[in-house]
């Protein structure tokens, strides 16, 4: 059994190694990569079966490969585990991941670097599996960083497009901010618990920190005038880490830009893997979060605010993929808010269903882009439903699921979150989330209308349906999007029971009135979106304004720019940073080479070289700085320190 769970991450890793070192042909690369992930899915299924046969309290398999760090008090094993929470995550990753791999065979056909593409993709899946299967924070961090690295490589995969490289760097750097907080959280956890293990390793082993959260109850840290609870400090640092990875406010700016990668990559990053990492982390370290009332408040509000901001932003996008990107951010906000309210099962439930139907939407969008010869602007589409029947039908199913229409998957999971908000008295949060869900229905109606209805506004291309290798995964996912909600139906609540050993949660009450109102609202708003953009289809011009622009004006622009958050960073953080670095280069390093952070060219290099005769003047400068340092050090030690 231990061998079995090691197979899950190792199979894609073998695929990665084969693709890097052995395979040179496009066809074999795609087959091997897909086959490995599919095999991993099968293995996961078997492992789940084994897990289900065990008594609920003992459902955790831990396997240590070797002692990773082993010095005195500092011990971290290189160990993975398999428990109910990991199981559902692994199922999602390998299942949806395998479909995306298959789809990629068609989508990436003919690309000159396709072998490298599949190598990256396999590595991505491997790292994500390590993330969810790690039994300690350090290994989780390995997966965490690995996923960030692979996303960087994949977003920048089409580096010929100028935006791709920049988007890749942006994603990595924003993620690094979250990672910094993660490292600090690890340091703090290690200091207070002396271990980074989540749970004890088998019988009689030392307890993991999640089992000993009580140890830090009431402990405070920080300056005397404002001490804070240790539990708050740690969970808040973890929250910052999660906001980076799961694209929450204020760090969600990288995700819409990350659309520069190939569309299957977007599906993988947005639906099945990377962005779910933050939510998974919060669910996994749930005891720490629950221990801090303060952090939970922050989590809830960050989630709700993100949901609303991104939901409104999604309404005003023209790029087919950016709509979905903001929609992802918005739905992640739902999950995070659910975590904050303590509804971890609902969050994971929504994560799973969202993973399925968002993958479906992205892949279908990829099919649209593929069939329209790389058109992404929805103003240049229209009337594609006849040319691309399969894509249209599957897209519609995905859109309905996302809008939360009965009885599709999205309805059940979203309803559970809303019901929890009402049932536990989070009224403001409920209102925000409910409005957001109405917006969700609206922009999906708008998108379906713009892409598939009306007439084709740009006659320069001939749309065609995608090959079967792409449509079959779409159909499979569409089936999933229809019946996915079944895993946690209100009466049966299988998922709640399955996750009970990890999350210790009771099933929530099903709120019939709420479900009714939500469905009616979603249907109404979806229809409204569809109606506005089909009746006004004639007014939509390529490069023109939105029909609603007449009524909303500047607000529409704010939405289109995601409330200027990105621009704010550009003007403040990035500009300040550039100026500082420029200043350092100019003042402290007069021979320094370049003031432009992202600049290219050898101009400055050549200039600097011509300046580099033997110039003692610079030595004088150096000696002066040196002397200042000397005076400071001596002055401090002789006068200030005593």
């Amino acid at each position, binding site marked *: 059994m231990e061998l079995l769970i090691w197979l899950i991450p190792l199979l894609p890793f073998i695929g990665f190694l084969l693709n890097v070192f052995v395979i040179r042909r496009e066809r074999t690369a795609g087959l091997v990569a897909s086959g490995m992930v599919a095999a991993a899915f099968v293995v996961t299924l078997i492992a789940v079966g084994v897990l289900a046969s065990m008594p609920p309290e003992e459902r955790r398999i831990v396997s240590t490969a070797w002692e990773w760090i082993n010095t005195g008090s500092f011990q971290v094993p290189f160990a993975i585990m398999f428990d109910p929470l990991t199981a559902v995550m692994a199922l999602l990753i390998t299942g949806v991941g395998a479909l995306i791999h298959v789809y990629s065979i068609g989508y990436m056909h003919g690309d000159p670097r396709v072998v490298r593409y599949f190598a990256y993709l396999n590595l991505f899946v491997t790292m994500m599996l390590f993330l969810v299967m790690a039994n300690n924070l350090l290994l989780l961090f390995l997966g965490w960083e690995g996923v960030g690295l692979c996303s960087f490589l994949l977003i920048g995969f089409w580096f010929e497009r100028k935006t791709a490289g920049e988007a890749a760097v942006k994603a990595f750097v924003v993620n690094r901010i979250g990672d910094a907080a993660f490292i600090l959280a690890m340091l703090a956890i290690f200091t207070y618990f002396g271990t980074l293990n989540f749970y004890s390793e088998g019988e009689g082993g030392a307890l993991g920190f999640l089992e000993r959260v009580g140890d830090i109850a009431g402990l405070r840290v920080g300056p005397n005038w404002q001490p804070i609870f240790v539990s708050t400090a740690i969970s808040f640092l973890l929250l910052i880490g999660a906001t980076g990875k799961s694209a929450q406010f204020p760090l969600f700016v990288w995700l819409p830009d990350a659309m520069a990668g190939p569309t299957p990559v977007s599906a993988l990053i947005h639906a099945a893997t990377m962005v779910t990492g933050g939510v998974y982390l919060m669910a996994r370290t749930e005891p720490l979060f629950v221990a801090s009332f303060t952090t939970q408040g922050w989590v809830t509000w960050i989630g709700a605010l993100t949901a609303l901001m991104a939901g409104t932003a999604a309404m005003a996008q023209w790029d087919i993929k950016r709509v979905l990107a903001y929609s992802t951010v918005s739905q992640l906000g739902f999950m995070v808010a659910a975590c904050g309210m303590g509804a971890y099962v609902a969050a994971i439930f929504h994560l799973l269903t969202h993973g399925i139907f968002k993958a479906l939407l992205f892949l279908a969008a990829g099919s649209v882009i593929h069939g329209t010869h790389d058109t992404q602007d929805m103003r240049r589409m229209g009337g594609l439903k006849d040319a691309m029947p399969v894509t249209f039908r599957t897209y519609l199913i995905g859109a309905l699921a996302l809008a939360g229409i009965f009885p599709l998957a999205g309805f059940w999971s979203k309803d559970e979150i809303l019901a929890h908000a009402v049932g536990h008295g989070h009224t403001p949060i409920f209102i925000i989330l409910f409005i957001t869900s109405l917006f969700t229905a609206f922009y999906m109606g708008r998108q379906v209308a713009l892409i598939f209805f009306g007439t084709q506004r740009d006659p320069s291309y001939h749309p065609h349906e995608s090959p079967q290798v792409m449509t079959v995964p779409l159909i499979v996912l569409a089936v999933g999007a229809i019946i996915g909600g079944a895993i946690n139906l209100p009466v049966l609540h299988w998922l709640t029971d399955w996750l009970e050993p990890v999350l210790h949660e009771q099933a929530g009450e099903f709120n019939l009135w709420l479900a009714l109102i939500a469905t009616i609202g979603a249907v109404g708003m979806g229809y409204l979106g569809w109606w506005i953009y089909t009746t006004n289809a004639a007014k939509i011009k390529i490069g023109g304004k939105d029909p609603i622009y007449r009524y909303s004006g500047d607000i529409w622009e704010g939405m289109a720019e995601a409330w200027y958050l990105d621009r704010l960073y550009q003007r403040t953080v990035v500009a300040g940073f550039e100026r500082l670095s420029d200043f350092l280069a100019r003042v402290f390093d007069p021979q320094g080479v370049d003031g432009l952070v992202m600049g290219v060219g050898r101009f400055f290099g050549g200039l600097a070289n011509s300046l580099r005769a033997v110039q003692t003047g610079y030595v004088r400068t150096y000696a002066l700085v040196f*002397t200042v340092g000397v*005076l400071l050090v*001596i002055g401090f030690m*002789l006068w200030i320190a005593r």
Partner: protein
Amino acid sequence: MEVVVQITFGVIAVFILVAAAMVVSVRNVIHAALWLIACFFGVGALYMLLEAEFLAVVQVLIYVGAVSVLILFAIMLTRQITGEGVRQLTNRWPVVLAIATLLFATVLAPTLINQQWNVPPAPPLGTPEPIAGPAELGRGFVNEFLIQFQVVGVLLTVALIGAIVIAYEERARRRKVLTLAEELELKRLREQTSPTVPAPVEAEPVVQESRSASER
């Protein structure tokens, strides 16, 4: 006796101060260097007065013998040597003054705040003065400071190799440095004739093949 010492000290001290003042005030750099030598001699005399004969000899050997010669060489190899009419003080001399004063104050501070020097107790009569004569120093080198002595040997070997590597070998590959006479000659020529006289150029690099083993 005591008075004689005091008077001698006064004479030497005045001499040192005058010499030092001259070093920083004369316009001709070479003269400044010569005054510096005089200053070093004065310090040597001061050591003599303190009955530190060895130190006095070393002072003359190292400072008068080596350091000053080095400085004179440096001056001669520098262009615009004579320095006639070149201002000695930079425009920002107050800054320099401030820094110098501060550093001097740092040195003087311990004495002024009445630091108790950790002077070893006076030895019983008849034993040689500690660290006074060369004999004691020699003994120290093979006894207490044996490892230091050895390492200094290695250090000097390294320095010597370095000097050889940089200065001697493949001299031809280095840029040609004009001697003082050559440079003056060149200057004179340039002033007399038209400005077409070529400026000093770098020597052609000698190709690898010309380095025969016999050269070594």
